[in-house]
């Protein structure tokens, strides 16, 4: 095995050994969201013509789970290793910056996709789902997970304490996710807030992802894909530059 494969394997093992907490729990949370919001709003809200609210909600919840779990994986692994000090075992090795970065991000993508698939399999029981453009589903899930996995690496490098990481999660990731159209279409918002929503990269991930299911979206999926890819490229460049500079990890 190469160093990269080993670190990737270790990162996979790390969350898989505690799958109740890292996989089963977020699936249950998403199901609860679906049952409660679906029950309350099913007969009152129709976002797209011909699409029931519960069906509309499923892709949003799946994507939200993908994003949150991808972020949680890389960020919590890094902060735990930093605080317990065992990150030294990785830092002492000849792993390159890219290898280190991609191992953390790919494991985050894997956890995001595993949890996302789990959420989908369970929630799809409650709704009539269609798959108009399955490739868009895969592309947006992978890009979104990679973006949040990268943000997790950056946050994990930056944060020195658990509460700093929690602040990053609660004041940045959570609002950006909830305000991206998980539970609603931004078209239902006043014009001002629609424009604000378009500045949120999370909006494009969820909108494009949802297009894969219903063939309907607020923005052309090609544009969404381009926006997400641009953000991802910028974040990756930033994350690798942080590792290369040794910021916080080697000071």
């Amino acid at each position, binding site marked *: *095995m*190469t*160093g990269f*494969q*080993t*670190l990737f*394997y*270790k990162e996979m*093992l*790390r969350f898989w*050994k505690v799958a109740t907490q890292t996989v089963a729990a977020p699936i249950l949370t998403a199901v609860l969201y679906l049952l409660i919001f679906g029950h309350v709003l099913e007969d009152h809200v129709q976002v797209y013509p011909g699409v029931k609210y519960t069906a509309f909600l499923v892709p949003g919840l799946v994507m939200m789970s993908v994003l949150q779990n991808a972020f949680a994986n890389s960020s919590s692994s890094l902060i735990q*290793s930093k605080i*317990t*000090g*065992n990150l*030294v*075992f*990785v*830092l*002492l*090795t*000849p*792993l*390159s910056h890219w290898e280190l970065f991609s191992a953390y991000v790919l494991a985050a993508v894997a956890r995001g996709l595993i949890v996302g698939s789990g959420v989908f399999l369970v929630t799809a029981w409650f709704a009539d789902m269609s798959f108009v453009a399955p490739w868009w589903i895969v592309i947006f899930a992978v890009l979104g997970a990679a973006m949040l996995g990268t943000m997790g690496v950056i946050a994990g490098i930056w944060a020195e304490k658990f509460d700093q990481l929690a602040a990053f999660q609660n004041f940045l990731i959570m609002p950006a996710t909830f305000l991206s159209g998980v539970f609603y279409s931004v078209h239902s918002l006043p014009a001002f807030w629609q424009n604000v929503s378009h500045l949120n990269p999370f909006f494009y991930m969820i909108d494009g992802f949802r297009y894969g299911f219903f063939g309907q979206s607020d923005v052309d999926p090609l544009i969404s894909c381009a926006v997400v890819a641009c953000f991802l490229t910028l974040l990756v460049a930033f994350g690798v530059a942080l590792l290369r500079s*040794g910021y916080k990890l*080697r*000071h």
Partner: protein
Amino acid sequence: MAAIQVNHVEKSYKDLKALKGVSLSIEEGEFFGLLGPNGAGKTTLISIIAGLNRADAGNVTVHGHDTVTDYRQARKLLGVVPQELVFDPFFTVRETLRMQSGYYGLKNNDAWIDEVMHHLDLTGKADANMRALSGGMKRRVLVAQALVHKPPVIVLDEPTAGVDVELRQTLWKFISQLNRDGHTVVLTTHYLEEAQALCNRVAMLKAGQVVALDATAALIRRISGSQLVVQLASGKLPESLMPLVSHPEELMAGRKYTLRINDHSEVEPVLAALRQSGAVVEDMQLQQADLEDVFIQIMEGEK
């Protein structure tokens, strides 16, 4: 080529200058001691060698490979035992060692892992979770982790701090064997008798600077001759002899004094001075100075 070459390394933490231009060269096959009081900069220097910290100025090479610009090659050649007792609670001892081998790109490393575990008396704990191990056992795993890739240069940062006699003996037997097989060993320790017994050469750091760098034997010869330990039944040490006392706390305790002398011919004048002052000698020993005496003298800034 030097195993480790440190060139004018400087490092500051805010207002504290931890390293003030340290230069030294450690040759292949040496057993090298890096000594100094707490806060002298030993761990900072080791962290810079290991790539865990970046120097503000200067550079370090391992077998000619720069630790920053050619870090992958430099790190392949180094095995570092960190001072802090750290571990990954998710894994067993064997998993930990396999994982560490994998980071260096080694697969099927079990034969060597088994050998390392055997030499460090870890075999019985191979399948125990890291969390379940005692402090001493965790320390052994740290050493094993540093050795999984058979590094030609082994760096041990206070490996025996708070460790029982048995582990110290096990550890030094194994490390000495590796040194005889050609591995370069760099050691920091507060146990100076260990450094004296093991290291062929020693550097002493004080406040971020190298204040002594020589062969261990030469250092002991050069700085201090012999020591005359006298225990008095009555009377006091005359003032003329007080400058010779090598452990100042003895002046406060009274009765027993360790006096530095250059050679045996100085024994009689010391005894004469004691007789003259009316002191009665109860016991007397002539000792060769050791590394600890040298260390104390250098750190006190004498001679």
